[in-house]
């Protein structure tokens, strides 16, 4: 048996005086010292912006340098808006990347069908464009009941898009106005 000086003190001290001293408020039970490894220690840190609401909090995304997968996300302490803090949605943002439930391809359910079918993006964009055209042609009003020129599309509305920035939104709303939409709303007001 090998006894270090520390062990010796521990044994002699606790075995003899320990019992008596313990009752007097001195606790001689050993308090362990451990080293704890940080699981994001070797991760690559990338600053990003939360995709949820219009506040635009800064997030640091930790990714595994080997697999490129997201390990952890947390508030960016250097970001002027949130200074490291996040709300409950922002705090859970890593689940966007690491989520078995996440939809990774275009899914289409035809009218009256009960099944989702995987489609490619080209097909989906053409389908959306076709539907927009169809709906706009059907609901376009050139003149109202009093004969005034209005040129509006009453069959389509736009709601949301918090993840878009100011410039993207300008282009987007310009497109919507060109179609004649008057029902345009942004998530910041919802």
């Amino acid at each position: 048996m090998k006894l270090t000086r520390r062990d010796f003190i521990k044994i002699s001290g606790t075995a003899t005086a320990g019992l008596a001293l313990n009752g007097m408020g001195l606790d001689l039970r050993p308090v362990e010292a451990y080293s704890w490894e940080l699981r994001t220690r070797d991760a690559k840190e990338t600053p990003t912006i939360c995709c949820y609401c219009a506040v635009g909090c800064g997030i640091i995304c930790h990714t595994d340098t080997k697999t490129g997968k997201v390990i952890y996300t947390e508030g960016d302490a250097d970001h002027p808006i949130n200074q490291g803090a996040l709300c409950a949605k922002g705090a859970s943002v890593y689940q966007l990347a690491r989520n078995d439930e996440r939809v990774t391809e275009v899914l289409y359910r035809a009218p009256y069908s009960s099944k989702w079918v995987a489609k490619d993006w080209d097909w989906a964009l053409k389908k959306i464009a076709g539907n927009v055209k169809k709906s706009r042609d059907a609901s376009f009003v050139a003149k109202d009941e009093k004969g005034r020129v209005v040129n509006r599309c009453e069959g389509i509305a736009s709601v949301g898009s918090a993840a878009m920035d100011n410039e993207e939104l300008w282009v987007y709303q310009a497109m919507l106005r060109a179609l004649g939409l008057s029902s345009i709303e942004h998530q910041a007001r919802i």
Partner: protein
Amino acid sequence: MSGKSFLIDTSACMACRSCQVACKAWNRNDGTVTRNRGSHQNPPDFDGNTFKLVRFREVRAGNKVSRYFFSDQCRHCIDAPCKDVIDSAVTGGAIQDKATGAIVYTEKSKGAPFKDVRSECPYDIPRQREDGTIVKCTMCIDRVSNGLQPACVKACPMGGLHFGDREEILARAEKRLATLKAKYPKAQLLNVETVRTIYLVVGDPKEYHKFAVASANPGVTRKVALRRMFGPAIDALRTVARG
């Protein structure tokens, strides 16, 4: 006494629960399947995957309704009864970190009697996983010992959660208490002397949560009482036996 401490200022809490979510994210804890019980408190209680929980209470006094939010977590007691129970069953099942004072359970806690551990806790914190491990808040010991703030404190957008050296936290708590006293005469700090997670409440703590303050009579079991008396001798013998 040194080490680290939390200050949880319930008067600043708006119950966004980002502390609760950040805790799950850092500890990689799964979600809990729950159903709507008519309360925002969700999940309804701690479980094997929930170490941090914002408790919601509505308290009516006459015509006035107060909403109390209580960001509940382990208090990291300075002299932790749960550690005594675990230690009396398995060596190394619970650790008290030297630098911070954090109480951390390990895989070995599987071997400890869960019911005793839970009933011994004056704040009803420990929970058990399906594999038998006993779990609770770790004070984010891996983050803290690497110079970071605990995940919950980092995430709090209201400045309700604070973490730091015990002296600093105590000073901050006293200062904030003095400020709040002017408006809320009932404002108080809970169990300051015995715990490292210090709550600041503005009303009757029992109205926040049944276990907001330590249960009046923790009911020390015979085993634990013995352990406290002979603990040092047992530890010494174990050290010798390990050689």
